[in-house]
């Protein structure tokens, strides 16, 4: 296998890992808890910017880029701090955006916040170097390992894979728990859940913070691999790309989200790269978004549950003493 081909392959794998974490973040928020985080891409960028400046070292001001919060922290601190920052930002946005009983309001506020954040970073050049963004971000252990570019790439892919497994452990544990059931009940009917004694505002805040942290983590992983980040990477529309992935893969199912990340953000996006260029510059990109729009319409119309739908949890199988149950329910049990 040629080195170039290997590099292409491992890049796809790392992107797949990053996108999978991103989709799990959206899935637990939207698919499980019903919180439509239309500011998703903002959280991913916050993680990316923060992990970037925390490894770049203090801004000298004289160099080609200026930024705040510069530091030289060893791995994995930049990732951890990025995730924490995503959580803190989610908490702050959640304070005024979260209204479990008013999903339309909630989604719109988040979208607007995302646009405002994007505009601020773009215009406030002293924060994260404005529209040029930050570049030349060091990679974890790169200087110590002294590997070739491809070899290092495989190392980074392994690092990503380990993180993906850790995040899976987390989201699976949560979605399979009684808390996960509560979140699904909140998705179905927040008012009814509240009237059973659950503070849905607090629960959706916890969920929002968790999802924000995971989104930021995905951004941190991505930025340390590609080594650069600029406002162009987080146009507001990107959020919807991830929503398409989760909806196509299967809303409320972690494996569905993973499949969506692979098919929509991997195969679908990547195959468009091989389209012959035509028309004006930017036409191909616009067509790409149109195709995505078509894809989401097709799925919402013909298969709204996605490719791997949410699992029906047959609790009657988990009864304490099946022998004591009435005839009807023992017929259901295996």
């Amino acid at each position, binding site marked *: 296998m040629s080195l170039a081909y290997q590099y292409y392959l491992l890049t796809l794998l790392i992107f797949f890992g990053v996108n999978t974490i991103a989709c799990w973040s959206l899935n637990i928020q939207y698919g499980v808890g019903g919180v439509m985080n239309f500011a998703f891409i903002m959280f991913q960028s916050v993680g990316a910017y923060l992990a970037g400046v925390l490894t770049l070292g203090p801004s000298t001001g004289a160099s080609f880029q200026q930024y705040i919060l510069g530091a030289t922290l060893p791995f994995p601190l930049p990732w951890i701090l990025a995730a924490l920052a995503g959580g803190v930002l989610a908490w702050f946005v959640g304070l005024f955006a979260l209204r479990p009983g008013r999903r339309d309001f909630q989604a719109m506020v988040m979208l607007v916040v995302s646009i405002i954040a994007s505009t601020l970073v773009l215009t406030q050049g002293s924060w994260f170097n404005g529209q040029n963004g930050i570049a030349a971000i060091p990679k974890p252990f790169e200087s110590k390992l002294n590997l070739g570019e491809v070899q290092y790439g495989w190392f980074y892919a392994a690092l990503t894979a380990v993180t993906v497994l850790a995040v899976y452990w*987390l989201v699976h*544990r*949560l979605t*399979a*728990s*009684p*808390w*996960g*059931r*509560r979140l*699904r*009940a909140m*998705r*179905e*009917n927040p*008012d*009814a*859940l*509240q*009237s*059973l*004694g*659950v*503070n*849905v505002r607090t629960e959706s805040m*916890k*969920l929002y913070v*968790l999802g924000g942290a995971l989104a930021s983590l995905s951004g941190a992983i991505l930025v340390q691999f590609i080594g650069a980040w600029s406002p162009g990477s987080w146009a507001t529309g990107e959020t919807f790309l991830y929503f398409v992935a989760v909806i196509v893969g299967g809303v409320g199912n972690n494996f569905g989200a993973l499949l969506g990340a692979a098919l929509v953000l991997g195969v679908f996006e990547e195959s468009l790269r091989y389209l012959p260029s035509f028309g004006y510059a930017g036409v191909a990109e616009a067509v790409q978004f149109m195709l995505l729009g078509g894809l989401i319409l097709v799925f919402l119309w013909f298969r709204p549950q996605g490719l791997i739908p*949410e699992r*029906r*949890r*047959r*609790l*009657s199988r*988990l*009864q*304490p*003493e099946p022998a004591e*149950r*009435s005839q*009807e*329910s023992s017929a*259901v049990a295996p």
Partner: protein
Amino acid sequence: MTAAPLPGTVTAAGSGADALLAVTDLRVEFSGVHAVAGATFAVEPGTITGLIGPNGAGKSTTLKLIAGSEVPTGGRVRYEGQDITGHPVHQVARHGLIRTFQLSSEFARLTVLENLVVAAPGQRGATLTSALLGKRYWRAQQADLIGRASALLAEFGMSHAADQYAGELSGGQKRLLEIMRALMAEPRMLLLDEPLAGVNPTLRGAVTEHLCRLRDQGLTMLMVEHELAAVERCCDSVIVMAAGRVLTEGTMAEIRANKEVVDAYLLG
């Protein structure tokens, strides 16, 4: 607009220490409309109290004010001697005062059993942090809850639907599910908003029976209902509301003899 004391409201003065729920001069207005304009009544423990009256009398709004989903502009709600006026919905529920909804409010894409289990208070693993402790921490208690929920399903004759999505149930079954779900929340008192709406006559009898049985087991209920036959069968006392106030109180037989009530229903 002040509420002149109406004949009949006097009985509410008996809302002494033994009342489980006491509502005093409860008021709310929505952009100038006095939906509830000084309602005063009390609910004795271990009884089913019916709340009847013409459309727009403020019955459902009164229930919402008690449950906390609307905030009163005046008046007091006392429950077990504690002032719970304006407390948020989930806090009122945690006191054991559980409300059901006028429109079916099942968790559609949760199974029937899940609908019941999710309602149980104090569940292990039902918070973000305790969920992280893993299955071993919450599995045994969940099994107990599933057992309790299954027993409830058997009691209401719905065991066959245990693993069906609640959204697939018929309208009447959804009403039953709603009552069962409220029972899983370990209530000391139920606020029922038209529990018989949309239930077929056969099932209606069964639901009424269940409610009577629950009352005999010591559960207190305040029930808004239009189905007067059912109210007559299971309500110990009946409160009649009209135009946001309590018109009169008494047994159904007394109410039927009251000309004012007949007028309210005919004119309201």
